[in-house]
């Protein structure tokens, strides 16, 4: 865990400075907003990573019946949803400057919004059950089931339709980042840095939860 913390601090310091100061390609419409790549896209990477960990732990709970895994799974889902909300907010700010509106009907946007709804449903389900072991069992089952539907929603459905969002045709903007090494130098460290941050937050939350449960 300590190495993750050190890596997180180093990489995020690098991202924050280099992401704002380094040279970026000049593209029409996008201009300087291309820098949102360093802060918006890693949020989604982190969210997917944490939700994957959450559903893996949920499956470990239902196969071992060890309540420890259920707490871990809940924790990761919680932190993952924070990152998802941040991802939507950073995306909305960017969209306001490039598309001229905060929200449009776009398959990627819909997918991410629905994905967050799934996890809000998960939290409601958890809060509506009193019995601890039943809560753990039912919500783990729902978490695994919902995550298996999240994958086609986010990764397959948007690829089948035209999307305004960078990354699949239409807008020339970020297709460049596949080629441009200047962006890559900051982008990959940013992804790893934010994932480490997510793990760190989840670790702190987990310790806190363990203490409050003991008392």
């Amino acid at each position, binding site marked *: 865990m300590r190495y993750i913390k050190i890596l997180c601090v180093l990489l995020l310091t690098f991202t924050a400075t280099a992401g704002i100061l380094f040279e970026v390609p000049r593209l029409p419409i996008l201009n300087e907003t291309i820098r949102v790549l360093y802060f918006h896209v890693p949020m989604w990477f982190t969210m997917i990573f944490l939700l994957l960990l959450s559903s893996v732990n949920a499956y470990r709970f*239902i196969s071992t019946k060890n309540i420890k895994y259920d707490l871990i799974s809940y924790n990761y889902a919680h932190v993952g949803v924070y990152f998802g909300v941040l991802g939507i907010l950073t995306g909305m700010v960017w969209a306001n400057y490039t598309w001229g509106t905060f929200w449009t009907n776009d398959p990627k946007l819909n997918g991410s919004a629905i994905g967050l709804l799934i996890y809000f449903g998960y939290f409601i389900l958890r809060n*509506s059950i009193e019995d601890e072991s039943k809560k753990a069992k*039912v919500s783990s*089952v729902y978490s695994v*089931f919902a995550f*298996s539907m999240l994958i*086609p929603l986010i990764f397959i*459905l948007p690829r089948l339709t035209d999307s305004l969002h960078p990354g699949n045709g239409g807008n020339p903007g970020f297709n460049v980042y596949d080629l441009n090494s200047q962006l890559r130098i900051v982008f990959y460290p940013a992804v790893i840095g934010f994932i480490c941050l997510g793990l760190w937050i989840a670790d702190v939350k987990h310790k806190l939860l363990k203490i409050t449960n003991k008392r």
Partner: protein
Amino acid sequence: MISKIFAILYKDFKIEINQSHLFFSVGLYVISSIYIIYISYQPTGILSLEHWVSIFWVIILFSSISAVSKSFFQESGNRNYYYYYVLSPDELIFSKLIYNFLFIVFVTFLTFIIFSFLLGNFIYSFSFFLSLLLVGALSISNCLTLISAIGHQVKNNSILISVLSFPVIIPILLLLIRLSKISSSEFSWNLIQDDFYLLILLNIILVAMTKILFGYLWRN
């Protein structure tokens, strides 16, 4: 295994016939909601395909949620203990899947008949649309069965079933609406094959997850 599945199905249908008010209440739900749409679209009626398709599937979604949510509730507590000794979870869940499928097929076809009677018909390629209704009923039942089993664990909380099922069912509904819009013009396999394969894939995922997870959910 198959004989047991049919035995439960037979029992479910017997209960359904004895308590026919449940069956008719879902039918009445469909009819009255379509009638509300019919009145609110007066005097012109529905003019565009987009409205027709989206309202059609939304009505099917809501009536199937109310139809499926009772499929586990009608089992009393004692009967569940009895099942626990006699059946394996796979047998129970597959019988519920088939039962819900048949029920939702009834709901979709009833909706289609009354909807096209009152609000006109925008569908051109009929055979494709009818098979789409069957596939749609299959996908909705696959999606809702596990959710209703989850909702059954949370005592008398039928609103929770709808909250939990909305986000999970949206990808399926998106595909169904897109395919139905295509069926208003001449049928061509090239237009639909991507979406259709994806729908089949989603169904396979749903059935597999339902089979795996229900075993864990059922054991107390």
